[in-house]
């Protein structure tokens, strides 16, 4: 049973205020959002910071529920993934981790790199050029804007890593920071 205490200590050491591991659906997204909101309300977080965290959480959770690849369905359930929020002295860190297909890695890596190379104006222009593209939403119901929006709301570079799982899938981690001081 020691792992419980270890997990508890890890969460405290990493300042994690919320960790969710399992299947991602819209219902779970709503519950996780409500918990995080209540948590931030409980210590009177500034409205502007709360809105940014909420915003990034939605994009992050919906990205996972749309794109996470289900592996070993018997063991892990549908699109099993992890989501967590860390609350530090001067920032929140919103992190997700999920499996994607190996053939998706290069495209996603290139997209994240190009986003991280852009400044505020560049991100705005990219956002506008994608939103006005004709053709509606993707088959998964996305606008292709989630990562760009997360980078814009964050005002920081997106953190990411790819860990190979096997010859078919890779574990993708994404982390986004929100500064707790609203004065830029």
């Amino acid at each position: 049973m020691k792992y419980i205490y270890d997990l508890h200590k890890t969460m405290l050491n990493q300042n994690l205020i919320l960790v969710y591991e399992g299947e991602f659906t819209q219902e779970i997204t709503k519950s996780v959002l409500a918990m995080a909101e209540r948590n931030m309300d409980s210590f009177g977080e500034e409205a502007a910071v709360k809105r940014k965290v909420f915003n990034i959480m939605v994009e992050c959770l919906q990205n996972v529920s749309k794109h996470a690849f289900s592996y070993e369905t018997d063991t892990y359930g549908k699109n099993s993934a992890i989501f967590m929020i860390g609350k530090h002295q001067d920032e929140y860190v919103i992190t997700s981790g999920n499996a994607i297909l190996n053939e998706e890695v290069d495209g996603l890596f290139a997209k994240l790199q190009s986003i991280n190379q852009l400044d505020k104006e560049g991100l705005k222009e990219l956002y506008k050029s994608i939103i006005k593209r004709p053709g509606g939403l993707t088959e998964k119901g996305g606008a292709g804007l989630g990562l760009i929006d997360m980078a814009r709301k964050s005002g920081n570079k997106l953190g990411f890593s790819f860990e190979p799982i096997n010859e078919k899938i890779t574990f993708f981690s994404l982390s986004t920071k929100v500064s707790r001081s609203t004065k830029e």
Partner: protein
Amino acid sequence: MLEAIYLDGTEDTPKIVLDKANNAFEISGRSLPEDAAEFYEPILNWLEKYEGQENPKTNFMFKLEYFNTASSKLILDILSKLETIEGASVTWFYHEDDEDMEEAGEEFSELVDIPFDFKTY
């Protein structure tokens, strides 16, 4: 007569008012549905029918607290539809300390050719 649409807001979908008789047009609250295209389809269809029998003035009120990126694409579709409606204008409300929502409204106003009025609440 075009039948009015009134939808109450939920934790992930906005309140919708589309009422020709009372000249009231509103989207407010939170918009983060899982399937944004499905949620907004009846609204776009309604506007489709409204075009051609529009009131002399159509002021569409957007008072969103939050919307996800999938919704933003559909909001642009609504605005593009309004572009084709004679006498249409938009009032974009944002919370006074919500710069992101103010900026979102400004960006939409740059993407379509409709008069935008900005108001804080």
